[in-house]
């Protein structure tokens, strides 16, 4: 089970990635973050930004699981 969760479902771009990025910055490499978002832009943008930043990403429904690089 991931130790951290983050709910960005009430946010819009770019705050969705800002909040996710800041949370990832607080984590150690290898640690996982479960991000809950709403369907739509965030579900497309946040995984893409996380991959571009080099993190491991998997998506299930509206939950994005990011393993910090």
């Amino acid at each position, binding site marked *: 089970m991931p130790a951290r969760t983050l709910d960005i479902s009430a946010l819009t771009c770019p705050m969705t990635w800002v*909040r996710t990025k*800041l949370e990832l910055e*607080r984590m150690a490499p290898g640690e996982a973050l479960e991000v809950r978002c709403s369907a739509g832009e965030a579900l497309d943008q946040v995984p893409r930004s996380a991959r571009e930043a080099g993190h491991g990403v998997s998506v299930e429904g509206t939950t994005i699981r990011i393993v910090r690089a």
Partner: protein
Amino acid sequence: MSDASRRGFFRELASVVASAREAAAEPEPEAPPPELTDAEIERYSRQLVLPEWGAAAQLAVTEASVLVIGAGALGAPVALYLAGAGVGRIGILDDDAVELSNLHRQLLHFTPDVGVAKAESAAAKLRYLNPDIVIEPYQVHADAENAAALVEGQNLVVDCSDSFATRYAVNAACCAARVPLVEAGVLGVSGLVMSIKPGRTACYRCAFPVEPHDAPRCADAGVLGPAAGVIGSLQALEALKLLTGVAPPIADGFLQVDLATAEFLRVRAGRRDDCPDCANL
């Protein structure tokens, strides 16, 4: 109390407590790292979202104290961008009053400000822009007599003055105190920008050992507002680079900008063994 001053207060308190603990030879617990507030995350979101920027860079500028020398054509964009970026404490120094002829290029001053001290006029606008930071106006002219006292304790100095005498005085003081410095000048439609890490990169005196005899004055040569805006904006960017390390500054030389031809030329200038300001650092 603003977030910046509150943080400063707690930092001081934490350091007093830490010294007391050290004196009592007890193990020192790690202070929790400072966190950005929700309002700060919102205000600075468009820089926080950058891959190069992040909480560490934001906290570095939030905790920084920067002195901007001159509240004119260069000082205006510099102070505006640094206040906007969240630099925690900005000193803005100028002993002139706003004149009608300043307004085409000095973005911090407006027509009703004519006759008002530039430092105060600037401070009022900067506080409007960002009420979470500390703005300290000084109605003082920087010179060789007071430069050392002015730069003491600063994390960075941005020299937006318009005279060689002031630039040399500020450079010497920053070198002696090892305070990083951003120098710049603008005339007509051209200018230059240079970042200085005293003792590590060439200083202003290394690059310009003597004042040019034919150096024109602003009043004689004139300046277009947007040209000053470009040079001041570059200077602000250099300041943010030096405060955070997010990108390499224009060091060991300067950037020569000709805005008539839109040519940017990087000119190399190394440290000089005989530099009276930095050779001994």
